[in-house]
């Protein structure tokens, strides 16, 4: 039999083991060398959501000739930590931010060798990459199908979360969509039209959405349907936050009242004659 005090020691040892095991940082593998081909693959993976090369602006600028236009050191710094450059008030970064509807370029946490590969690619890239929307034979988006995907009435084929979990739009009636993320009513204008929005939905780069969709991408048809639905709802003005809140508030308190009535009814059924003297004690 272990003496009483030793049990605490045992607990502490177990605890320390669990905590340090959980905190062990993963060791990253050494990055591979860089080349323009690798850069092209990285560009497809990380950038095509918002950028084209010679295909026109989407949510972000057309990058044709960007290597000549910008100082290489600035470009390298920008690819490494755009969020920090904006926060530090870099003049070019702020000008770009203002020019592109205040949509900040997300930090993709690229490694140095990935940045070198991207720079190598951007230096030689020809206008062969059409914009995702314009290049493909235009997939017709169905606004009604898009609404079903948005609300979750029809699940996304890869199992991603329905948009309404976190987003509202004027296209939904009260009490509307979620409030964890921003209202998407006017999102089509901000992200370069329906084609631009399709691209954004194709390579989802918003930091809080990356873990949700990185293994569950939207199909091109789903991108088109959602963009069509959001383009349709953009014709209305954004829903009033106050009305949405009030609806949910009233409903929640209504349900609470129903439960309270139930509680009162249950209480009345208790035999009073026997309870009263007991309650008075």
């Amino acid at each position, binding site marked *: 039999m272990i003496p009483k005090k030793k049990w605490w020691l045992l607990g502490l040892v177990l605890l320390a083991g669990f*905590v340090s095991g959980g905190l062990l940082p993963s060791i990253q593998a050494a990055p591979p060398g860089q080349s323009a081909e690798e850069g092209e693959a990285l560009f497809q993976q990380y950038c095509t959501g918002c950028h084209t090369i010679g295909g026109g602006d989407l949510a972000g600028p057309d990058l044709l000739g960007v290597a000549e236009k910008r100082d290489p050191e600035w470009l390298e710094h920008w690819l490494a930590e755009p969020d920090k450059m904006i926060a530090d008030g870099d003049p070019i970064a702020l000008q770009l931010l203002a020019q592109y509807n205040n949509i900040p370029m997300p930090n993709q946490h690229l490694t140095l060798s990935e940045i070198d590969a991207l720079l190598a690619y951007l230096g030689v890239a020809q206008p062969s990459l059409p914009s995702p929307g314009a290049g493909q034979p235009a997939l017709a988006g169905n606004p009604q199908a898009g609404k079903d995907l948005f609300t979750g009435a029809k699940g996304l084929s890869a199992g991603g979360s329905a948009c309404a979990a976190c987003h509202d739009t004027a296209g939904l009636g009260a009490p509307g969509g979620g409030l964890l993320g921003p209202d998407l009513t006017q999102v089509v204008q901000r992200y370069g039209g329906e084609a631009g929005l399709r691209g954004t939905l194709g390579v989802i780069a918003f930091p809080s959405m990356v*873990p949700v969709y990185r293994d569950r991408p939207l199909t091109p048809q789903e991108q088109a349907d959602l963009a069509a639905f959001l383009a349709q709802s953009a014709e209305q003005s954004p829903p009033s936050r106050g009305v949405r809140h009030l609806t949910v508030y009233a409903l*929640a308190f209504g349900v609470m009242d129903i439960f309270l009535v139930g*509680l009162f009814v249950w209480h009345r059924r208790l035999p009073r004659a026997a309870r009263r003297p*007991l309650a008075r004690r």
Partner: protein
Amino acid sequence: MADLVLFVAIPYAAVVVAVVLTLYRYANNRFSYSSLSSQLLENSVLSWASVAWHYAILLILTAHVLAALFPGLWARLLGGQVRLYVIEITGMGLALIAIIGMGLFIWRRLTNPRARAVTSTGDWVLLAVLLAQVVLGFITAFVYRWGALWYLQTAAPWLESLVRLNPDTSYVALMPWVIKLHFVGGFVTIALIPFTRLSHALTIPVSYLWRPYRLVIWNRRQAVRE
């Protein structure tokens, strides 16, 4: 770093503390597994508080656990706007009932001298943590709706990563602080089980939910008349 402490270290520490000390208490002081009922000391407020709190919190807790254990089933249950609204609004109503119940518990122990006399520091800590937890839960549900849906892609995979001993905080790292507090508060509550009367939950006294009420008959008439 703060995320590692909040979403890895505290959860594991809480579960280890809960399991190890619960077993210790079971081995050494088995008779203490009790809610230490003070019903005989004061029953008129308690009967309102206890019924409201327990029915509401058990239903809410069931929803949290179901969604974490069977995310696919939960997602299908919520498919479609109307079903989402019904479940969410019911949950918010139950949360309000739980807040009322917990408020009554606290008010009773503050104002009733007989109940107050048997209230320990541990009880106050437990009452405060539980009240904070249901208030944070209601704010989360109301301000950051619709949590019944986003839970499946944020909290559920994070909890699963903890169970698999391969913690991944990326799912919850960018949440607003109110929600983070609610997450951490859940594990703080688990850690309180072995130290407080919350241990009565481990006996899973579910038959209380449908058993008939019982009457206590006093045979000292003198005391009643006083």
